[in-house]
């Protein structure tokens, strides 16, 4: 029996094609003599030439790639963060931080009920945030190890200290706001939480962008603004939901401003990222989030002025939209990390550009 017709492709079709990126290349082979359908001209036994059968089918398991990869495997390891915890935290942290700022703005301009609702909302969102963050740890009992060091190179470390500064103030603001005790302390805590709140709402952008995940990392210029806008929209939504219309004017404006900033930042990011924006553009959650936030903001400033019910519906839409946006950003990042294309191709382009610039110089 001749080995001439043997093909290593028979041993590993995926390996051959994905490794070499040669799916389309025709390989000369002799015609087949072994058929499933037992048709005429069949020669069996020792004259069989396995692996020489006709034309190969297109194999779906082989990625049709215009770039090389190792069996289509991602270059990066998949983030171990779980969506309910970390995307949930992105939303809740934003809601808490922006609500504290809105609460102070409301309190200092004589809107006590909006202030109280925002303070309580911020504290609840903060509680949810801490639960999600600790729940996501591989060793939750060791969460205090975060306080061993302060590292400006680690957004998670910086964030831990931001939360450590913000948390007690948000808690004190809510407790004094609800009970009416210690008004002086309450005022100080309210202002303190309002100043640290925006840091809570925006540092999370650095948290996810300071990774090798392509869609997150490359979006680092717009992500803080997208998150700030989304947080403002969520805080506005909470105000619309929980405060009487007579006091909700700041919430309505915050929602409108936040929705606009969020959508503009998202659009800019998608334009700047080019091919890397595909997972963002494909994301239904992001589209749904934008639609809900815009609809909620517009409904809030129009019907929400007069009707308490409309204001509440707008508030729910804003909160849901902000959450959808965070989960959409999270999932788009996971998708970009899971496809070697998004890691390899931008790096290839960068290398080609550097080479061209060197050649010109």
């Amino acid at each position, binding site marked *: 029996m001749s080995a001439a017709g043997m093909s290593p492709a028979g041993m590993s079709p995926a*390996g051959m094609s994905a490794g070499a990126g040669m799916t389309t290349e025709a390989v000369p082979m002799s015609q087949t003599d072994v058929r499933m359908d037992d048709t005429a001209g069949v020669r069996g036994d020792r004259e069989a030439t396995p692996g020489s059968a006709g034309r190969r089918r297109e194999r779906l398991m082989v990625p049709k790639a215009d770039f090389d990869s190792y069996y289509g495997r991602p270059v990066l*390891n998949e983030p171990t*963060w779980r969506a309910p915890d970390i995307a949930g935290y992105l939303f809740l942290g934003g809601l808490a931080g922006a609500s504290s700022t809105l609460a102070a703005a409301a309190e200092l301009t004589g809107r006590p009920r909006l202030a109280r609702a925002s303070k309580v909302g911020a504290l609840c969102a903060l509680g949810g945030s801490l639960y999600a963050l600790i729940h996501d740890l591989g060793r939750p009992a060791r969460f205090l190890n975060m306080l061993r060091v302060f590292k400006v190179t680690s957004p*998670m470390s910086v964030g831990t200290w931001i939360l450590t500064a913000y948390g007690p103030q948000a808690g004190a603001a809510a407790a004094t706001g609800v009970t009416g005790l210690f008004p002086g302390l309450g005022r100080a805590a309210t202002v303190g939480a309002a100043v640290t709140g925006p840091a809570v*709402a925006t540092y999370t952008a650095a948290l996810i*962008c300071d990774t090798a995940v392509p869609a997150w990392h490359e979006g680092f210029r717009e992500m803080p603004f997208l998150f700030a806008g989304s947080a403002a929209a969520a805080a*506005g939504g909470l105000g619309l939901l929980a405060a009487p219309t007579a006091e909700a004017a700041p919430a309505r404006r915050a929602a409108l401003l936040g929705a606009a900033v969020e959508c503009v930042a998202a659009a800019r990011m998608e334009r700047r990222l080019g091919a890397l924006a595909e997972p963002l553009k494909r994301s239904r959650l992001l589209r749904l989030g934008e639609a809900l936030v815009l609809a909620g903001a517009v409904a809030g400033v129009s019907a929400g002025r007069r009707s308490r019910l409309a204001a509440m519906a707008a508030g729910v839409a804003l909160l849901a939209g902000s959450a959808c946006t965070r989960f959409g950003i999270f999932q788009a990042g996971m998708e970009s990390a899971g496809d070697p294309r998004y890691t390899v191709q931008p790096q290839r382009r960068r*290398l080609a550009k550097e080479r061209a610039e060197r050649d010109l110089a």
Partner: protein
Amino acid sequence: MAFDLDERLDESRRVGFFTDTSICIGCKACEVACKEWNHVPDDGLEFTGWSYDNTVKLSADTWRHVAFVEQRKPLGHQEPGVGEMDFRWLMASDVCKHCTHAACLDVCPTGSLFRTEFGTVVVQPDVCNGCGYCVPACPFGVIGKRESDGVAAKCTLCYDRLGAGEEPACAKTCPTDSIQFGDLDELRERAERRLEQVRAAGTTSARLYGHDPGDGVGGTGAFFLLLDEPEVYGLPPDPVVTTRDLPSMWRHVAVAAVALLAGMAATAWRRRG
């Protein structure tokens, strides 16, 4: 702790690996020796059909990973002996790169990851709380979080053996010296000589990977001689430490935070009534 992006490692005391994939025979003795010495839990007991690779990638439980690539390309002047067809079988033992600018080390919020006196990067499992930040930070997809105990794990370059004057288990066991351990300066010189030799022998596709201190991670402590593009082996062609952009990220965050504060204040500008 400040940004260590400009930090200079003491190169004279730095050790590392030079993995010459041109003489790797795919025996996986490195994978086994690593597991034995470091008590790394089993994995890779599945059939992938990807040539002889069943461990798939580096992870918390795979600190050495041998990649197998089958290609219809010639290897130098070699006659593959399969008719008219060109064929070559590339094997490469991958490992943690022990980067000069290590993203995992930068982003670790507990200080569990640290730089050793040998210039390597090591996880302290008793400090790690399993936040998982190092996993997406690594541009090479090396470090992973172990499900069983919830902490991050990766190659330590056999930190315990180094202290005793021994070379790492994988290098010790490698039967062809594809994995070479030593002082980084010396390894880099040796790699340059070897590259010239391999190229002169006809394999012009050979190149070094990770040896250049001017690359996006400041050069790696474990570097390679490859016979094809890095991505063919599952390696990123131009890795960049993510924290290189972090100063700019913090500036953008600061502007956004101040804008949020100002915006929220502006929404309540007019006093009620």
